[in-house]
């Protein structure tokens, strides 16, 4: 099961990438699971867990950590928004 993962703003800068394709192992079916999977790589990736108030979206809609992730989804992680 593959998903697209995007990073924005301070998180994108901290990770040095704006996105990637991530293969999800069996049983990794929630946003919280995806976040933990990526953070487990260590190094800068741990910022995904350490960054305060990180927000996320699934298929371009805000989503909670418990939300389900499906094959082909576009998942995004980003800091609290500051537009307007």
């Amino acid at each position: 099961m593959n998903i697209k993962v995007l990073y924005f703003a301070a998180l994108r800068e901290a990770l040095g990438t704006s996105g990637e394709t991530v293969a999800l192992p069996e049983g990794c079916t929630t946003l919280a699971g995806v976040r933990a999977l990526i953070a487990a790589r260590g190094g800068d990736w741990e910022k995904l867990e350490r960054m305060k108030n990180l927000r996320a979206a699934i298929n371009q809609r805000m989503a909670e950590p418990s939300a389900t992730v499906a094959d082909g989804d576009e998942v995004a992680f980003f800091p609290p928004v500051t537009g307007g």
Partner: protein
Amino acid sequence: MSVSVQEADFDIGAEIDALLAGRTDVGAVATFTGLVRDINDGSGVHAMTLEHYPGMTESALEEIVAQARARWDILAVRVIHRVGTLQPADRIVLVIVAGSHRGEAFAACEFIMDYLKTRAPFWKREDTPEGSRWVDARDADDSAAQRWN
């Protein structure tokens, strides 16, 4: 189209005229314009860059407008948000709400701004004499959005 995300500046008067063109049922127009200030959190700001999440920004703004239309009896809405690099005094965002009466127009305009500030995926980075920094989300914006719950 009621929502635009663009690099280009906008003309407030022209946008109001376009929204009201041909209508004679509008009694009240409330607008909000957000501008780049030269000072933020005590530091001078000489430029600001707005990053966004293409695709999601438009749909997030459209959903906020739809919520405003469901809550209040309003007639027309226009939202424009700029992205890219801006200077102090540059316009960032415009919200126009037209209605029959002023109470609904004011409330819907303020609601759209409060929700935009906390739910639309834009991020500001400021250039200051101390360097470039991402703007922190303000607790005041969360409180402002929560009062509509």
